[in-house]
């Protein structure tokens, strides 16, 4: 259950960004959450709602996009979907692949007033 510390970090960043844009209220925020990050979206929403009570962030919707794992094989020079957490190129069997998507834990955009 580390969603509370993630929610805290998220709110710190949102407050900085809101100050930067002179926003008075937050309507929504969109996050990218990689398949590989160990986040439970429901827990994150729950923690977020508790912490923002009584702040200009109260009532904001947390929109979370789950990003599936994607790899790239430098030998075959092409991307592929990583299924069942098998980090091996399905074409040539190489294990020296790069993970290009699916490890995100980031903010994408916010809607403010």
């Amino acid at each position: 259950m580390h969603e509370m510390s993630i929610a805290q970090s998220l709110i710190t960043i949102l407050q900085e960004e809101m100050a930067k844009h002179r926003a008075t209220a937050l309507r929504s925020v969109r996050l990218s959450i990689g398949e590989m990050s160990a986040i439970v979206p429901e827990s994150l929403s729950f923690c977020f709602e508790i912490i923002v009570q009584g702040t200009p962030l109260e009532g904001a919707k947390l929109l979370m996009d789950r990003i599936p794992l994607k790899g790239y094989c430098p030998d075959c020079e092409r991307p592929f979907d990583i299924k069942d957490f098998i980090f091996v190129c399905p074409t040539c069997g190489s294990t020296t692949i790069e993970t290009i998507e699916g490890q995100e834990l980031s903010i994408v955009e916010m809607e403010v007033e």
Partner: protein
Amino acid sequence: MKVSVVRNILEANERIAEQNKALFQEHHLLVINLMSSPGAGKTSLLEKTIDALKKDLRIGVIEGDIQSTSDAERIARKGVPAVQINTGGACHLDGNMIRETFPEFDFSGLDLLVVENVGNLVCPAEFKVGEDFKVMILSVAEGDDKPSKYPLMFHESKVLLINKIDLLPYVECSVEKIIKDSLNINPELTIFQVSCKTGEGLGAWYRWLRERVKEKSQALKNESQG
């Protein structure tokens, strides 16, 4: 109004972890982040490792637990500096908690610092503390389905120690399955099969770790000369 904000949510922690890492580099110190579920054998492995290496290496330990100082006391009995962090509920250590222990250590007198994380197979994998690499322990009593259930932990670790192999006759667990599934998740993973109770397999781990400490101090010497 929509505003594009492309920022990593964990950026604050990662910044602190980088600062910690820079400080450890200055002191030529190898730092490992030791993770496992509660009861897999982190403290036992540490006690054994300290006994085996303390005549050649100067070792320090940061102990992370939700409550109690019993682990730091166990380590301090081995005659090495140990600092206990009580997270008071948090399920993992982060960069800032590690930074707060710095006044307690004389890093210039150390070769190896081990950070023993809170027992948990999920959260510690997500937070860097400034380590060179992560080491995880899985005991055979936990079962062979753990790599597929907790892939992040196996993906983030450089080393997996499969512990309590002396219990294999009594538990339903296939070491072959653990090895196969963990290597699918992390083909670069170095795996040791050990028993902290009987000592089986630990020699290979000690040799490997000693090599990494040597490599680190050598790399830094070359850097400062070059």
